[in-house]
């Protein structure tokens, strides 16, 4: 029931906004639908926490702590982003970068996008998971190209081609998975149901699964933004509207990673050794290091934070690759705090860029002087994303680093270098933006900054105190990721 609502609201919202998306009250409707989704997700979460894992619609849908926590996160960030995009989009329209038709497209696609993500999370059928992920790609492609500028078109095109091709590989992997499963479960619909695969995972053919995992990793990894498959990511983040950048790096990457992890579990079961884990650790480290060095060259603020997303996805991938309860816990926590912090950062960045009329960091100065809220939001957000306590990002990085130091000491030098470089790069660029003299103009609409500080407050809380039910929740999820 809750599942139906969770999926129904955004779908409905997508249809409604496809009709009324250009109306003056469309942004409110958008936020409202997201709110409904959030409420439904909350209900679902309660149910799962109390009642444990559940399946629905002859097992086409399956909810366990792992995905329900991502569902809740997705719904929440989706809602706050909708709140943020209200004034943001109005200001964009006011600045004449968008017209009514585009706004309609934007709003409906926004809802459809969250629908596809939720579907991807909730579906028990790996095939559907793939379909919805591809759907998410299509939706976001339109969102990225919203401004129709050459740059945005180029970004969207690259995004489209690279992700489609990547995800095609994933499909082949799924076919191989099915191919292996068919032998045990037999033909028919059930062979792609994750629960069934999970049940028989240790009887699946190892050679096929290792092959399949390669395709799956390359496929979904492209969407996660793992180096060297990441090249679409910075462009898409930099050229799309800021709310889209926020949900892209805040949510879509998580969802893609979720898909990878789901598959990893099966493959590990089949192979018995940590083949997939090693691959993920490798990709994770590579992403962290390369992204860190890219960071130091950025001039465009959104592009820079896009690279920071790559870096953090790398950390999470590395954590999941290490495995073990602590690391998996840390990975989940990091997913949460990263999407909260990063979206908060993008909110502030969005308004900052609107104030200065540029995304070029050299031209953004003295935010704290002119609009303290945005300035402090950006400063604190950046410090949080850089792993400064008492913010939650530090918590997960603490666990990851100490575990890594103990289990894979060889990896820590890379992490040390990467974190250092990333800190120098991001902080060195953020500081002059928030401090110093100002050159800002006023905005036609009051910026929405509540989401920023709500997110930061949650992240701060997670750094100092993790509520027991959340812990329980993470624990169950971590236990099953292994």
């Amino acid at each position: 029931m809750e599942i139906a609502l969770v999926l129904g609201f955004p779908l409905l919202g997508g249809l409604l906004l496809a009709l009324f998306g250009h109306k003056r009250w469309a942004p409110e409707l958008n936020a409202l639908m997201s709110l409904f989704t959030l409420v439904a997700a909350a209900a679902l979460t309660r149910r799962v926490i109390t009642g444990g894992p559940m399946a629905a619609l002859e097992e086409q849908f399956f909810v366990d702590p792992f995905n329900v926590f991502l569902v809740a996160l997705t719904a929440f960030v989706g809602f706050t982003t909708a709140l943020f995009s209200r004034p943001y989009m109005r200001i964009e329209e006011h600045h004449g970068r968008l017209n009514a038709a585009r706004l309609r497209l934007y709003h409906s696609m926004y809802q459809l996008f969250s629908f596809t993500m939720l579907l991807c999370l909730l579906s028990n059928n790996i095939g559907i998971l793939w379909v919805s992920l591809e759907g998410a790609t299509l939706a976001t492609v339109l969102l990225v190209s919203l401004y129709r500028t050459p740059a945005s078109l180029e970004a969207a095109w690259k995004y489209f081609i690279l992700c489609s091709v990547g995800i095609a590989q994933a499909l082949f992997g799924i076919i191989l998975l099915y191919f292996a499963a068919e032998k045990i479960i037999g033909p028919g619909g059930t062979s792609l149901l994750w629960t069934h695969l999970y049940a028989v995972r240790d009887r699946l053919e190892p050679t096929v699964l290792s092959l399949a995992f390669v395709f799956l990793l390359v496929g979904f990894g492209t969407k996660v933004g793992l180096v060297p498959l990441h090249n679409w990511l910075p462009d898409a983040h930099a050229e799309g509207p800021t709310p889209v950048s926020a949900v892209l790096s805040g949510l879509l990457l998580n969802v893609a990673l979720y898909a990878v992890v789901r598959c990893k579990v099966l493959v590990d079961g089949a192979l018995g050794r940590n083949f997939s884990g090693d691959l993920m650790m490798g990709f994770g480290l590579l992403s962290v290091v390369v992204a860190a060095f890219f960071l130091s060259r950025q001039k465009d603020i959104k592009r820079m934070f896009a690279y920071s997303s790559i870096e953090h996805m790398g950390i999470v991938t590395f954590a999941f690759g290490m495995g073990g309860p602590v690391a998996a816990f840390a990975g989940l926590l990091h997913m949460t705090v990263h999407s909260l912090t990063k979206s908060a950062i993008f909110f502030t960045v969005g308004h900052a860029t609107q104030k200065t009329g540029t995304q070029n960091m050299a031209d953004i100065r003295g935010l704290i002087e002119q609009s303290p809220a945005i300035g402090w939001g950006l400063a604190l957000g950046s410090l949080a994303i850089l792993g400064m306590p008492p913010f939650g990002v530090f918590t997960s990085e603490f666990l990851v680093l100490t575990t890594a130091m103990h289990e894979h000491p060889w990896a820590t030098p890379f992490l040390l270098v990467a974190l250092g470089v990333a800190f120098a790069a991001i902080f060195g660029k953020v500081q002059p933006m928030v401090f110093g003299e100002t050159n800002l103009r006023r905005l036609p609409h009051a910026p929405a900054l509540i989401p920023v500080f709500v997110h930061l407050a949650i992240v701060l809380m997670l750094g100092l105190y993790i509520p027991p039910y959340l812990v329980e929740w993470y624990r169950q999820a971590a236990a099953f990721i292994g």
Partner: protein
Amino acid sequence: MEPLASPLLDSLVAAVSWLVIAALALVPAGNAFFARRLAFPLGALIGLALAGFGLQAIWLPTQQMTLPLGLPDLPFHLRVDPLAGFFLTLLGSVSAGISVYATGYFREETAGRLALIGLQYHVFLASMAFVILADDAYMFMVAWETMALSSYFLVTTDHHLPAIRSAGFLYLLIAHLGAIAILLCFGVMHGGQGDYTFDALRAADLKPQWATVAFVLAFFGFGAKAGMIPVHVWLPEAHPAAPSPVSALMSGIMLKTAIYGMIRVTYDLIGNVHWEWGMLVLVIGAGTTLFGVLYALMQHDLKRLLAYHSVENIGIILLGLGMSMVFVGFGHPAAGALGLIAALYHTLNHAVFKGLLFLGAGSILHATGLRNLNDMGGLIHKMPHTAFYFLVGALAISALPPLNGFVSEWLTFQTALQASILENGVARSLLPLFAATLALAGALTGMCFVKVFGIAFLGRPREPRHAAPGAAGDHGHDAGMMERFGMAWLAAGCFVLGLFPTSFLLMLNRVAISLTGHGLREGAVQSNWLWLVPIESERASYSPIVFLIVIVSVTLLTFIVVRRFYHGRLRYSDAWGCGYSELTARTQDTADAFGQPIRHVFGPLYLMQRHMPAADDAAPKFSLKIEDRHWYWLYLPVARLAEYVSSKIALLQQGRISIYLLYSFVTLIALLVLVR
């Protein structure tokens, strides 16, 4: 818990109430009445209370407790043992003086800035308290980084100045790198089953090489905060940038938390100390000491000079610590305890007199708006009180009897003189060399502070434009009531610590016992308040009280005799110009001139750019620029390397979609090959 008293609980309350003050300071009320009038005095009171609790903690058995915060398996663990108690005392007592001073110092700030300063200042204090109280790796790191963060925001209070921004950036960057190193050190030490309490870390037995890795990580991690070479570069930038009370806090207390961390990790968590570690500490310490004082001699910016002296004093502390580690490593716990006590005593002393000196510098800055010594002169006539307190601080830091600086250096020398009990010939003959370094540094410090006091307070105003009526330097009023009180508190500290060392020695002895299991020998512990006898009375003893009494009485006697048998007639006249008709104020030595002999002797150490005026120069100008060599052999190369690597990595992304597809393709093929 303790039935009679619970210093742990009390100090927790104190720390939390600092946080409360911080929160209240942010509440806007009129022109920030609370932040302006109440916040800092209250903070000072809490500091006093905290010092009291710390003293209790030194004498009471260790106490532990946990808070329902933090990680799931890892609620915040708190603990006070004598070591923590000692550092709490340091934090509380010194910060009390500084807070009182701050009340006066920040009086003229605008409401908005004041609120922020009040917030950050007290968060800073609280985080330092939590660093000392923490009993698990996670809480320690959180408190540690919060400390760095709050102090960073304090440093960048005047963030519209580019220099200050870059100083803050450098500071936070190095602090963060150090923090990561510390974090990794905890990672090495923890048992693997995700238990990060210090008890677990103590329990985990490490292989020697891993223990060494942990030590080195901790040493450099904490060293980055303490400001030892070669990771000191942030310090002379950040301390001058901060408002003076904050500089005092950072230099006086924050650096000490790094010392606390080193001792905690090395003696307590790792446990079995290797003497080689001690040698490493000694070498770095000696380098730091000399480097610090030699660069301090070259400075003409008063606060920068003081910052370099902090570097030097950290070096002295490291010397004591290193000797102690060597002795402990060779199995001479008694001598080791002496070294540890010397180090801790100097930690406390430096906190007091360096705090005092920074406050004095702050008063000068407030009164005259000057930081450049070359523009000062004759301030003693305008601000006698400040001059007196500053003189006390200067004598103390120059390790002159009977003030406190002398006592700790004396103890350090005594430790070095224990060298003859070592079996290892190398170590035995090396220790005196480090003592020699210390002696040299002490004398140089004396020279440096003759320069500071002589040039800032004595003589005549050097720059007419500053002395002219209405100019910045002219309306040099003396420090206000509150500021004086704060300085007086710390100056009194210099005297007390200098005159009654024995009682503190017993205190520190307990700390040493709790860490190394051994204290000083019997002969020492039963020494009464009058005689400071670290080993036994035949070996060495020192009685500052007697010393003071004798010198004062003798001096007075002389005075009385002179006045009694002769006369006190006095005539004033101009200074004698040795035949030169006009002695303009500019003929006096400047700070740079005073350092010239040192430049001459230690020339190769400095990176100098000097512009000498030509003989026929119409407007002769002499300019001198001294730079830190570390920039050129360490930091810039690293930066360039990073730049180079990133420029190469950027080639990965040249915008061609075909190439991007090729990446995916190659990755796919490579992985498939891998699977085969």
